[in-house]
């Protein structure tokens, strides 16, 4: 008894000292107001060492995050809520939490942008740290004990949220971001149910950023994601943070439109409704929309997109994550071309009468007329041209149809009259788009990736920023948004490099991972073979193609090109169109219509009344990419599939079905009735096309090719894409794209 009393007396002061010296208790008492937290005993109980991790339920990383250890020795162990997790050195606390399966709220942090650390939403508690720590900017240190679920962290988030909402207008009901707003979601999850702010809210003047991005700057929470995106990814240093304190605002200071081809992405990265889509403004709420995961066809990159539709209408297009192709960005053309899908549509089969006017007819009549004419002409006078938006199935069907008619004059527009379709390495991006990130020297030959393939350009810019890669460019004067050397304008410079006379040759030869990108615009040149063999000479001399590294690339222009060359859409003779009597244009709007003889019978099958319809004798309405299921192969040989998001318009049909029906009427029935059957047919020709969502690299390199004996001409390379915003029938029909090209392209 006596001893026990003595012991308790001795213990008491000690324990009191322990309690008062514990910094966490002190913190709890001062900044936490919840009643249970004001009792130091309970909080002391909470401050006890964490329970052994065996009791914790296993956690899965957020969004399937995987940890990659570049160097196994650099692995460190941290504890997130008592759960040990191994991460590589240099990761931030926030990333460590993600690996441990804890999603930290954040506004300013974005994994693809530099770290700003100014929203303070990601505050967590770290043991032995006197204050909550901004986890996005804090590197994780070995043995760090991170606590994301403690009252301190919760209180900190609640406080930050209250400050953020202080000047944020309460206009969620009229805000386009409503329903997909980070601030809305996180204030529900982490915010308080009331605020103490009674003064007037601040208001900010809206900025005019052009026809694509709508600004409501009062809603801005100054996360600076858009500023960092514009500076780092898009490469247009227009946006900035102006002013200070409560008067701080995002702006351009001087009146300036955002003239980037990636500007639409700021809509996605804005965590609030400050930057929203102008064409989509007040058109729909996001929960009414049906998302269809599909593929973009406006360029050869094949960006992964989600088509959001309401009923029969495409309401907007947003990007989908694909690390290999477009990361999480898409170009403005991809994002805003959708209103072209609603204008100038062909919805009924038509026949041009004797008076030169079109008359709406039934499918039966139209097909009968075409079949009859096709049989009246000689087989070698039949010519088929696939358009730049054609899918692999329809090109297969068209080729089979023409072959059965006895003709082999079929090609895809943009591949030229004499394409090299024998070796896949001769027309693919062999390095792959993601592989470009390893490169340290680029040589761009006759290509302007910024307008031809904006996503590839973003990848090059990323590499230039990260590796200080050097870029040499041969071609007409252009505006690339990274540092580059303009080496020359034509084949002359190419020859100099090939003969090792040019100073850039040594740069190329000394590079570890050199990359040569040749533009597909050169396919149309007369001396294309010589240029390609010159490029191959350079590649050989500078060791661009090695067993472990293939840096010789061709950047294609159109979505259909790679698949067309895989399927062997190569014309038998180069000038067959000039002697043609029956021309089948499958969505081909960029063929030279003057070359078609006046007495030729022209069938136009397509979805838009664009250029070629005016020359057509019969029009077959077809489905656009948003309305059909079709395989597209992108410039790096990655086969992907579109899915129908909306029904076809009017009486239009899928492209391959029209050709299949025509073949039956013409008496040469093609042997496939379903998508599965036609894909089985494709498998026999080009099996890589049916291996969806998979990149099939070229097997053989170009060294197998015989040398060309053509003479090289010294005419400089030309601009291939005149107007980034209007390249095909869909974008030419789009009003938004017309606005963009009027306002944003440089005169």
């Amino acid at each position, binding site marked *: 008894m006596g001893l026990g009393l003595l012991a308790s007396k001795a213990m008491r002061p000690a324990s009191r000292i322990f309690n008062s010296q514990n910094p966490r208790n002190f913190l709890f008492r001062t900044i936490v107001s919840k009643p249970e937290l004001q009792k130091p005993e309970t909080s002391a109980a909470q401050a006890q060492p964490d329970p052994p991790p065996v009791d914790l339920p296993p956690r899965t990383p957020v969004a399937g995050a995987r940890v990659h250890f570049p160097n196994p020795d650099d692995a460190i162990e941290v504890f997130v809520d008592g759960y040990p997790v191994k991460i590589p050195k240099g990761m931030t606390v926030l990333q460590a939490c993600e690996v441990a399966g804890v999603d930290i709220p954040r506004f300013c942090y974005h994994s693809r942008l530099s770290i700003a650390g100014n929203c303070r939403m990601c505050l967590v508690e770290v043991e032995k740290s006197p204050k909550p720590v901004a986890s996005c900017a804090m590197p994780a240190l070995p043995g760090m004990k991170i606590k994301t679920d403690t009252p301190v962290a919760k209180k900190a988030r609640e406080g930050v949220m209250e400050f953020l909402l202080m000047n944020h207008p309460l206009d969620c009901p009229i805000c386009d971001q409503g329903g997909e707003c980070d601030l809305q979601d996180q204030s529900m999850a982490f915010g308080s149910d009331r605020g103490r702010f009674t003064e*007037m809210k601040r208001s900010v003047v809206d*900025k005019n950023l052009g026809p694509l991005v709508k600004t409501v700057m009062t809603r801005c929470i100054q996360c600076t994601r858009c500023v960092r995106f514009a500076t780092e990814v898009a490469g247009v*240093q227009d946006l*900035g943070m*102006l*002013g*200070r304190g409560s*008067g701080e605002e995002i702006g351009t200071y*001087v*009146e300036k439109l955002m003239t980037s081809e990636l500007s639409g992405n700021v809509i996605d990265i804005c965590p609030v409704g400050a930057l929203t889509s102008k064409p989509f403004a007040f058109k729909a709420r996001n929960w009414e929309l049906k998302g269809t995961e599909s593929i973009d066809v406006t360029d050869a990159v094949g960006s992964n997109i989600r088509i959001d539709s309401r009923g029969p209408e495409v309401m907007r297009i947003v990007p989908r994550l694909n690390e290999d192709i477009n990361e999480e960005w898409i170009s403005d053309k991809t994002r805003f071309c959708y209103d072209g899908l609603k204008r100038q549509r062909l919805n009924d089969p038509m026949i041009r009468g004797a008076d030169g006017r079109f008359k709406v007819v039934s499918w039966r009549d139209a097909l009968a007329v075409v079949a009859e004419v096709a049989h009246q002409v000689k087989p070698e006078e039949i010519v088929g041209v696939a358009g730049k938006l054609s899918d692999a199935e329809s090109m297969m069907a068209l080729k089979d149809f023409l072959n059965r008619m006895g003709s082999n004059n079929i090609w895809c527009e943009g591949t030229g009259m004499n394409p090299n379709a024998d070796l896949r390495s001769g027309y693919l991006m062999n390095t792959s788009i993601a592989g470009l990130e390893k490169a340290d020297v680029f040589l761009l030959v006759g290509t302007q990736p910024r307008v031809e393939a904006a996503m590839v350009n973003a990848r090059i810019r990323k590499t230039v920023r990260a590796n200080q890669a050097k870029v040499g460019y041969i071609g007409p004067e252009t505006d690339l948004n990274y540092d580059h050397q303009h080496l020359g304008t034509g084949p002359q410079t190419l020859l100099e490099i090939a003969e090792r006379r040019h100073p850039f040759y040594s740069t190329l030869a000394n590079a570890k991972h050199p990359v040569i990108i040749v533009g597909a615009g050169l396919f149309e040149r007369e001396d294309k073979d010589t240029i390609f063999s010159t490029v191959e000479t350079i590649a050989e001399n500078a060791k661009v193609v090695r067993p472990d590294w293939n840096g010789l690339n061709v950047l294609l222009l159109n979505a259909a090109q790679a698949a067309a060359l895989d399927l062997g859409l190569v014309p038998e003779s180069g000038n067959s169109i000039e002697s043609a009597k029956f021309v089948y244009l499958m969505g081909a709007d960029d063929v030279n219509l003057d070359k078609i003889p006046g007495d030729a019978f022209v069938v136009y099958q397509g979805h838009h009344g664009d250029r070629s319809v005016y020359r057509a004798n019969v029009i077959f309405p077809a489905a656009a990419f948003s309305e059909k299921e079709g395989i597209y192969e992108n410039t790096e040989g990655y086969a992907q599939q579109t899915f129908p998001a909306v029904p076809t318009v009017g009486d239009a049909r899928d492209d391959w079905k029209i050709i299949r029906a025509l073949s039956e009427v013409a008496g040469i029935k093609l042997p496939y009735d379903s998508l599965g059957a036609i894909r089985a047919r494709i498998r026999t020709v080009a099996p890589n096309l049916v291996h969806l969502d998979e990149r099939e690299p070229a097997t053989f390199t170009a060294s197998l090719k015989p040398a060309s004996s053509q003479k090289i001409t010294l005419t400089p390379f030309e601009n291939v894409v005149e107007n980034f915003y209007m390249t095909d029938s869909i974008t030419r029909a789009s009003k938004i794209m017309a606005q963009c090209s009027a306002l944003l392209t440089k005169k």
Partner: protein
Amino acid sequence: MISNGLNSATYPEIVSASASQISLSTELRSLLLAELNSSWSSTMLARLAAQRLAEIRQVFRQPIRSFSTALNYHIDSPDNNPDLLWEFSDANKEKVKEIISQYPSNYKQSAVIPLLDLAQQQHGGWLPVSAMNAVAKVIEVAPIRVYEVATFYSMFNRTKVGKYHLLVCGTTPCMIRGSREIKDTLLKHLGVKRNEVTKDGLFSVGEMECMGCCVNAPMITVADYSNGSEGYTYNYYEDVTPQRVVEIVEILKRGEKLPPGTQNPRRIRSGPEGGNTTLLGEPKPPPCRDLDAC
């Protein structure tokens, strides 16, 4: 309404009372009355609402407390637009070179603040957008990076100021010692509002944060841009009184120079008024040590 049904005995009086008010009051008020059905609580609510309205009005009536002289965005005007040609003068080009030489060649952008300051002195105390563009060109960054800096610091004026830009310290020690009266006197004497230039282009009055010599509060700064960047001075006039600032303004108007420092004739620098009261003689050595021994 429900309670009304219960005590229907009192019903006619209330209705008549409220009805008479209905005819007088606005639609909003009548709705309120119908809701509450009691004249007492409605007047109480009305009073609360009026009080809140008055508060809101008060917020609007207060001058917006910002130290910067301009908006955070640029509006083109004849004397301030990006098309105007602006260049550093030849003498200043030398200075620019010297300033830039102080920074590593790959961190030229660090020179942005001194260069903006130089440009401001050269351009009579303010920075047109073309001057900022010129600075951006010198340090090889995008113009927006310079705009960011220029809008951040209130010392960079982005609208016209007078040849003598008078800045009154408004921070707590000066405020307690009467800086508000000084500012009001100045504004009244010159007949301008804050950040407005007098008609003769000589003066403008601004407010700034603590100048750091609070022992001589209150004080004003006179930034003298009348002689370009060569004759540029930036002087503190301390211990000012409303009478004294008017005198200072008049002296400056006559083009005379005035020695900076305390304006209290009975003080020497920051010493106490009327001479020292302590430490008058040689301080006594500490008793424990014999200083002569060392």
